[in-house]
């Protein structure tokens, strides 16, 4: 489709204002990078939320179409934001910066009384409420979460393209999967190719999980389930290793998510019992697909999966998770939030989530794959296109 970034930003900000209005908020003060991205403002780099030295602050009000931005990174401010809305950076990691922040908010939004904030720096914990007695500080994520959960067509297209970059890079990795290769070589192939293809950032250490065929043969785990995900290092892959891979990147602020099960071998072939795991996994995913439609609940998806395979996910993970400006965001499906919670979350067009069921037979191994879907007006559409070698 024809991707229109100004339209995407405009529509997101309108949704954010609607969500603020629904929550009775006059404004939201955004410190978290993914919420800033949603408001149209980019961070200078993909740091793990730690903007110690180049903090960006965004204030979106319910009355104004465009946000105020305090940033040292002018390139991250979209063209439609006027010059009088772009300000010198605030040092919110320091007490004086929080004092300046409070002054700045009172100058640009003097009537704001109920203001959401998503994250607090350490000096904000100590001083924000004290310095701003006229403001009631609320949880901004009630508004940002509501705005973000359903994607616009432009957002879906960004995710499709992010996933495409991820998949093309992974073809090169799968081709290199031979006994004797090291995990860090696979990471290097993936990252080099992903950035050559235009990825904006890598958002997780690439995972090449060497997975023993039984839980007992692996390392001690906290929950008695499969040890996953394990950090990659320079160890060799050997003939017959079962590899659960998981990678992710961003393109224009949107996350991909790629997970497959591979076998490291000169001529990779699953055992008949391993292929049975894969076939059962296909039954699970097809049952879940059949349940996806607007008006269904996340609990309906849990029940569809459990109808085929009672334990359809690793204990500490889930059947699925939302994705967008974060790699894992609402809705969470089949997680430890519980079925009763999942029954309260209704699927709606534009909702994007990553389904990642696992079928495991201890002693045999198992199968895991991640599939990104978007809910449409009459069902769903898949964004993942990669196949299931060597199991299919």
């Amino acid at each position, binding site marked *: 489709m024809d991707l229109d970034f100004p339209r995407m930003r405009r529509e997101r900000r309108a949704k954010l204002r609607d969500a603020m209005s629904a929550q009775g908020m006059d404004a939201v003060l955004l410190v*978290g990078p*993914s919420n800033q991205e949603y408001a149209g403002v980019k961070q200078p780099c*993909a*740091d*793990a*939320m*730690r903007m110690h030295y180049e903090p960006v602050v965004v204030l979106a009000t319910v009355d104004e179409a465009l946000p105020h931005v305090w940033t040292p990174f002018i390139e991250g401010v979209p063209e439609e934001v006027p010059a009088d809305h772009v300000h010198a950076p605030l040092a919110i*990691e320091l007490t004086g910066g929080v004092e300046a922040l409070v002054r700045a908010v009172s100058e640009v939004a003097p009537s704001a009384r109920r203001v*959401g*904030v*998503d*994250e*607090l*720096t*350490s*000096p*904000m*914990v*100590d001083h924000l409420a004290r310095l701003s007695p006229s403001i009631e*500080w609320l*949880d*901004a*994520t009630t508004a940002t979460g509501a705005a973000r959960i359903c994607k616009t067509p432009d957002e879906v297209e960004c995710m499709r393209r992010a996933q495409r970059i991820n998949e093309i890079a992974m073809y090169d990795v799968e081709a290199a999967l031979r006994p004797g290769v090291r995990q*860090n070589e696979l*990471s290097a192939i993936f990252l080099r190719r992903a950035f050559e293809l235009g990825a904006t*950032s*890598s*958002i*997780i*250490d690439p*995972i090449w999980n060497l997975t023993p065929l039984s839980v007992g043969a*692996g*390392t*001690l*785990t*906290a*929950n008695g389930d*499969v*040890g*996953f*995900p*394990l*950090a*990659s*290092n*320079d*160890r060799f892959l050997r003939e017959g290793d079962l590899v659960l891979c998981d990678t992710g990147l*961003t393109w224009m602020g949107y*996350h991909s998510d790629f997970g497959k099960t591979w076998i490291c071998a000169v001529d990779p072939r699953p055992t008949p019992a391993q292929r049975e795991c894969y076939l059962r996994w296909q039954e699970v995913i097809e049952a879940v697909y059949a349940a996806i439609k607007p008006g269904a609940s996340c609990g309906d998806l849990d029940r569809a999966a459990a109808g085929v395979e009672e334990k359809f996910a*690793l*204990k*500490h*993970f*889930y059947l699925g998770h939302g994705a967008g*400006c*974060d*790699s894992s965001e609402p809705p969470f499906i089949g*997680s*430890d*939030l519980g079925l009763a919670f999942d029954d309260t979350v209704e699927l709606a067009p534009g909702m994007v989530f990553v389904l990642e069921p696992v079928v495991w037979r201890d002693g045999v191994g198992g199968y895991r794959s991640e599939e990104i879907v978007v809910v449409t007006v009459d069902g769903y559409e898949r964004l993942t296109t990669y196949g299931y070698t060597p199991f299919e």
Partner: protein
Amino acid sequence: MAPTPATPNLGTPNLSTSASEERERIAFGPLRRARRARVLEAMERLDLDALVLGREGNVRYASGVRRLWTAQSRPFTPTCLVMRETDQIVLLSFSASYEGMPEEVLPDDFFSVTWNPMNFVERFVATEGASTARRVGVDGMSPFFDGLMHQAFPNASLVGAEPMMRELRRHKLAAGS
């Protein structure tokens, strides 16, 4: 003719990515213990009974655990608890596996990633000293977790502790510390 620059002796042609901690090519054990001792000393100085960290660099410094790195998108989550009195660390791990954990973090003191925030409260509240802690340092917070932290530490006030961690991390330790 310009002098040939000295070739550094790296000791091995492969310095590794993240495996070196396992191979003990550097004495990481003493380094981790020295860092942790400095954290505990600083907590004593600031009269912090507990320290709750969410920033990955701080968590790595205090716990010695190199968790899976994720970037850009992780919202603030308090995932590492340090207790001054008992020197106990309670840590969230992205994996259920104990692989890569240093010996100072005991097998019962980590929990795998969770999506239900009440699980954080339960882990923290069950920690010896949580119910009596008076001052809890935090390196960041969110309004949502702020409410939960007051459930986990019912008698404590939250105190910004990022300046403390920044000061500790600014001064690097010499080899063999």
